């Protein structure tokens, strides 16, 4: 499951809105990286053999493991967080059954 959520942009009207010192709460991210992408990965869940390799190799942790709906045989699905995926292609390259393809982003996205 994905347990990461974005934080709101902190206010910046007065000096006192800034944190004390050069510190800020950890795990506080206000923006995604989707705009970086030229290609986006698409997972063919039917071809996926649940080897976990794509989830393992993503440098951005942008592939999460979800439990499949109740009653499904295999139990896991691999879901891409397109808000943070940069389209580097490692998941597709490393997927041995070729279940991930890199598709060009639409021009107006």
């Amino acid at each position: 499951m994905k347990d990461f959520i974005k934080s709101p942009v902190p206010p910046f009207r007065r000096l006192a809105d800034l944190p004390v010192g050069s510190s800020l709460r950890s795990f506080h991210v206000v923006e995604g990286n989707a705009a970086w992408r030229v290609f986006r990965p698409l997972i063919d869940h039917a071809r996926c053999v649940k080897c976990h390799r794509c989830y393992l190799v993503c440098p951005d942790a942008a592939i999460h493991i979800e439990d499949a709906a109740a009653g499904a045989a295999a139990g896991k699905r691999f879901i891409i967080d397109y808000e943070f995926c940069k389209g580097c292609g490692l998941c597709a390259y490393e997927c041995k059954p070729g279940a991930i393809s890199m598709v060009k982003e639409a021009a107006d996205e």
Partner: protein
Amino acid sequence: MSANMSVNMKQSGSAGASGAAASGAAAAAGSGSQQIKWTARNLPEQEHFYGHKACGGCGESLALRLALKVLGPDAYLSLPAGCMAAVSFIYPNMAFRNNAIITPFASTAAVATGVAAGLKALGKADPLSVAFAGDGGTADIGIQALSGAIDRGERFIYICTDNEAYMNTGIQKSGLTPFGAATTTTPAGKVIHGSITEKKNMFEIVAAHGIRYAATASMGYLEDFMNKVQKAKDCGGPSYIHVFAPCPTGWGHGSEETLAVAKQVVDSGLWYLAEFEGGEFRLNRNPETFIPVRDYLKRQARFKHLQDADIAEIERLRDAKWQYLRSHWTV
């Protein structure tokens, strides 16, 4: 060990399926004091590094992500000025879940051991201070602080992510830039064709301090790397892991090829997987035959200028090193 696993499972919330996998692995590993063998399936699912601004396909960022899954959210991180600090701490975007501090460039190991000493003084049970630094911050400007930190003997883990140049500042040569590589300060010029020095051997330098545990690793062998991180965590003293982490931007290969390149460097013998433990060196992999170094070199733009004579020299250096390793180290 199993207590650590259960804490991570609770935090990730998906106690069902991953819990079964994790306890399966724990059972397979034997009693509670046995070492877990990490795989993609039994790693804690919780992420500790999210939303960073590293280049797509960055080997170093994957090294941090996976190391932190092994080390857990209680680790206190120290990182110097460099790519990982630069992409993870830009106000207001903080990409680490852990307590984390950027250190002055020269002093990652000093700050990390100051953190360890401070936590110990405050009475924290079993504090875990972890430093992540690049090759420049380790072998050049940071080597003094690393040496002193190992010498003082506080428990801390130092992980050097080696991408063989000062990448954050624009791909300049470092002490760990290999022979022949083009960098922005050792360009493939008309007279001098890239870097003319060999890599400093940080693994052996650190071992010469008598460090409790040290290891070399590569992003091409992820399970090996993660298990070495676990060993470092368990060793109870200073430890050092040197992980080869390709940089697509600086090396000139596709962002999707990062792990393949990191595997080739090991399979061609240009990098070795080894450990220093109990005062002895041990090779983890001793290939009967190497793949051609040309296959590894020529897929990277930083080596494209190399001529046959340069490649022959690289092979000669590799062969000399392996002759030494095979005759002196436990294989």
